[in-house]
């Protein structure tokens, strides 16, 4: 009797201990409290071109590559693209020191690589060292530096890492996500990094079994020119509210379809489940077919990169010709703020939105659009279409509008006729059409412009190397909504400060003010304070108008009606950033 009781007691206590242990380890899984779905099934996606690599340190060069590696690798944190919040990923929690320079990340004890090895602090430190390795050229190398100083990572124990910054750096936590800091497995790649051959690993010709991942999906097969097949990672660390291990889909097939028309036909016939980049000209066609083909076509909001029209304000001397890059007289027109404002008032944005974008675009007032709810400054001037105001400003600036042979001509103080070239990229027909509309708008105030579509490479060469252009119409993509992602654009010393790049000293007072404000917002973690600085920067841009912001196209995605848990956002990759939660 006593014996039996002892046995029962021991049996119960073992059960209790194992239940407690399981609860402890289960706690280290990331449980998504609002997610539920059905396990199983296949999702069929499409991509316009092949990926170029499966190596996450190189994939940001091409959108087709990063689309796939974003589903395969994880960072310490992840960014919820819909709410813009930072969420735990491989790190379950983190804390920062009083002075804000030391960060401690606590990794999940149960997180494993797709080959079953545990993910540890060694992997984090290995990844940082790999990124900083002199033979390895990856964009992350410069992104993870503060004022040209590297970060230091110290292992505290197997699942705790301390990272030390040289100074307080606002975007630091955001940079610990999978795009700029994808954690790599040390046990797999240590030898390859040592002998310098790491960058040719995880390439298109690699064996899929060699690509060890921490994300929801791993590579099953790559058929060149045709498709990429991903399969679920059995060791993924996230679970839904019913403790079902994510991801839901067994497989994801990404078909490589080089032609937009094929993609739309496949959508309509049901062979494709989701497409995230519907073009303006195709929206109405797809909308009419959507309900019968069992699709939802969703307008996600204004895309975060508005169309920009800017003038070349570069007054530097070309070392080859010993003269300014563009005509002196043109420089004097462009550098006149009243001139630029007059142009802004003379462009009929509504007409372009109606006739060229078929109403799938919205007016943009500044570099941030309403989609960037937290950082966008709503108190900017509306440069509405007002020809009279435009003429008034031009007269104030010393220009005269004269009639010659029943044609209007604008001349400056020295009787030079105002005309210039507008370059844009030839691949984008919509943009060329918009440029032609702008051209006819400007004729009404006597300015004749010559629209020059250029092949993209030639365009970039002019903007970044030869600086021999007058004005340009283009849009830049925004990979992230945080102001730190605009540093390259706003700092006067940067090569991407597109109207006057690589300045050794800020040429104008307002450019110096922008430089100072952007550096200030970088040095604090207080987002209210940062917003105050950033709103001021937007106000300065609005006041001096180095770039005239026109409109931003709407971001439109189309997906099968019965896809669950979609949280589409205007930032790429729009709908598959939370691929592990998607389910039928």
């Amino acid at each position, binding site marked *: 009797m006593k014996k039996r009781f002892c046995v029962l007691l021991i049996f119960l206590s073992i059960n209790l201990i194992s239940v407690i242990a399981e609860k402890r380890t289960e706690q280290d899984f990331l449980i998504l409290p609002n997610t539920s779905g059905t396990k199983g099934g296949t999702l*069929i996606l499409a991509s316009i*071109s*092949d990926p*170029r*690599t499966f*190596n996450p340190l*190189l994939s*940001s*060069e*091409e959108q087709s590559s990063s689309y796939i590696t974003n589903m395969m690798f994880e960072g310490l944190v992840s960014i919820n693209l819909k709410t813009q919040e930072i969420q735990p990923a491989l790190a379950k929690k983190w804390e920062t020191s009083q002075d804000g320079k030391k960060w401690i990340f606590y990794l999940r004890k149960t997180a494993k690589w797709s080959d079953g090895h545990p993910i540890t602090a060694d992997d984090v430190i290995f990844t940082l060292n790999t990124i900083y390795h002199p033979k390895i*050229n*990856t*964009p992350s*190398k*410069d*992104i993870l530096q503060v004022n040209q100083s590297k970060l230091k990572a110290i292992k505290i124990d197997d699942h705790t890492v301390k990272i030390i910054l040289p100074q307080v750096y606002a975007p630091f936590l955001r940079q610990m996500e999978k*795009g700029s800091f994808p954690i790599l497995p040390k046990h797999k790649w240590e030898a390859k990094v040592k002998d310098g051959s790491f*960058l*040719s690993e995880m*390439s*298109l*010709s690699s064996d899929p079994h060699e690509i060890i991942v921490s994300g929801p999906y791993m590579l099953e*097969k790559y*058929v*060149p*020119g*045709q*498709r990429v097949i991903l399969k679920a990672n059995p060791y993924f660390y996230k679970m839904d509210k019913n403790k079902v291990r994510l991801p839901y889909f067994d497989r994801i*097939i990404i*078909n*490589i*379809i*080089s*032609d937009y*028309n*094929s993609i739309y*036909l*496949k959508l*309509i*016939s049901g*062979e494709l489940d989701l497409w995230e980049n519907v073009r303006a000209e195709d929206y109405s066609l797809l909308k009419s077919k959507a309900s019968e083909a069992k699709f939802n076509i969703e307008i996600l909001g204004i895309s975060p990169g508005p169309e920009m029209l800017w003038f070349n304000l570069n007054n530097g001397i070309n070392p080859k010709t010993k003269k300014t890059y563009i005509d002196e007289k043109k420089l004097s027109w462009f550098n006149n703020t009243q001139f630029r404002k007059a142009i802004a008032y003379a462009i009929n944005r509504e007409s372009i939105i109606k006739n060229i974008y078929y109403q799938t675009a919205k007016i943009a007032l500044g570099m941030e659009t309403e989609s960037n709810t937290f950082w966008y400054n709503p108190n900017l001037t509306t440069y509405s279409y007002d020809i009279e105001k435009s003429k008034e400003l031009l007269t104030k600036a010393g220009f005269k509008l004269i009639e010659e042979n029943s044609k209007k001509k604008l001349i400056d103080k020295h009787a030079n006729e105002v005309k210039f070239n507008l370059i844009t990229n030839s691949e984008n027909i919509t943009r060329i059409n918009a440029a032609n509309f702008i051209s006819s708008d400007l004729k009404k105030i006597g300015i004749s412009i010559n629209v020059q579509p250029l092949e*993209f*490479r*030639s365009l*970039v*060469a*002019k*903007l*970044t*190397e*030869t600086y021999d252009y007058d004005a340009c119409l283009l849009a*830049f*993509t*925004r*990979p992230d909504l945080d102001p730190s*992602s605009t540093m*390259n*654009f706003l700092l006067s010393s940067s*090569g*991407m400060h597109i109207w006057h790049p690589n300045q050794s000293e800020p040429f104008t007072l307002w450019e110096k003010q922008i430089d100072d404000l952007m550096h200030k917002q970088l040095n604090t973690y207080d987002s209210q304070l940062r917003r105050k600085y950033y709103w001021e920067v937007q106000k300065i841009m609005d006041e001096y108008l180095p770039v005239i912001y026109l409109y931003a196209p709407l971001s439109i995605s189309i997906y099968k009606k019965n896809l669950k848990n979609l949280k589409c956002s205007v930032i790429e990759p729009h709908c598959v950033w939370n691929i592990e939660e998607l389910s039928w």
Partner: protein
Amino acid sequence: MIKFISRRLFNLIFILLGVSFISYFLISLTPGDYLTNLALNPEIPPSIIEKIRKDYNLDKPWYIQYFKWLHNLSPIGFDTKEKHLFIKPPDFGYSFSYKIKVSTLIYQRFGNTILLSLAAQIIIWLLAIPLGLLCAIKENKTLDKIISFFSFTGLSFPEILLGLLALMFAAYTKLFPIGGMTSSNFDEMNSFQKLLDILHHLFLPALILAFTNIAIIIRYARGAFINSLKSPFMKALKAKGIPSNIIISRHIFRNALNPLITLFGYSFANLINSSFLIEVIMSWPGLGLLTLNAIFSKDIFLINASVLLATLFLVLGNLIADILLALVDPRIRYESSNKL
């Protein structure tokens, strides 16, 4: 014959050298290089771009890059340290864009393009020769005019439009797949099903490629047959009383084949090059798409390898045509002629 072939192959080397030289020169005239594309990418800092540029020798002038490429490509290497020649495997270099060896990339897609071109070639020649013969026999009658009309329609129709129409046809009738080479579940099929799947996908692209190129062959075939039909020996054969079908099958054919065979080699090479557009429209994973992307991104090694391959096909196609001609036509024997 052997002498003739070997001389042609030897000339081939010079042709390839010339073509690659011109190709490098022309590409150098365009602004920027592969990395220029990345300059406006907000996620890539300019210092990394400069580093990569140095690593890939893209900051050196084009003739230096050409000689380096040539050195990599040649089976004979020159070691500057030890000052001696050595044999090494030819290396086509790395693709900047795809980050793997160019030879691997081309090898993966090359078979697909050949398959498409071969299928189109078979369709063309199976149709063109009988149709050309028919046209020749019924010269200037209604049938001749109708066949000519259709073949010229094919020639003037823009390929892109035909491709799109084919895609729409496939989508609405569901008889054929909408582009691509294989179905999503290709790996789970057995060999026979795989063959059927590829043929199923191959049909429409090959048909379009054939339709747009068949006109020339029909016209040539027609002309060749008419020439033979009008020649003096025809009258002699008819006078002898030999029935028409034997005249046609035994005599006309062999005599008309002369210009047609010359055309065969040339048209095969032409098909490979003209398949590029169809490949893009119908998502056929061949060299066309690869080369197009390479040109747009200025992926120099890949562009040059594609250019060399296209030239190789052209020359080899012509060589094969000449050899076939010598075999078929006893009047042409290269060894004893003074042409050499």
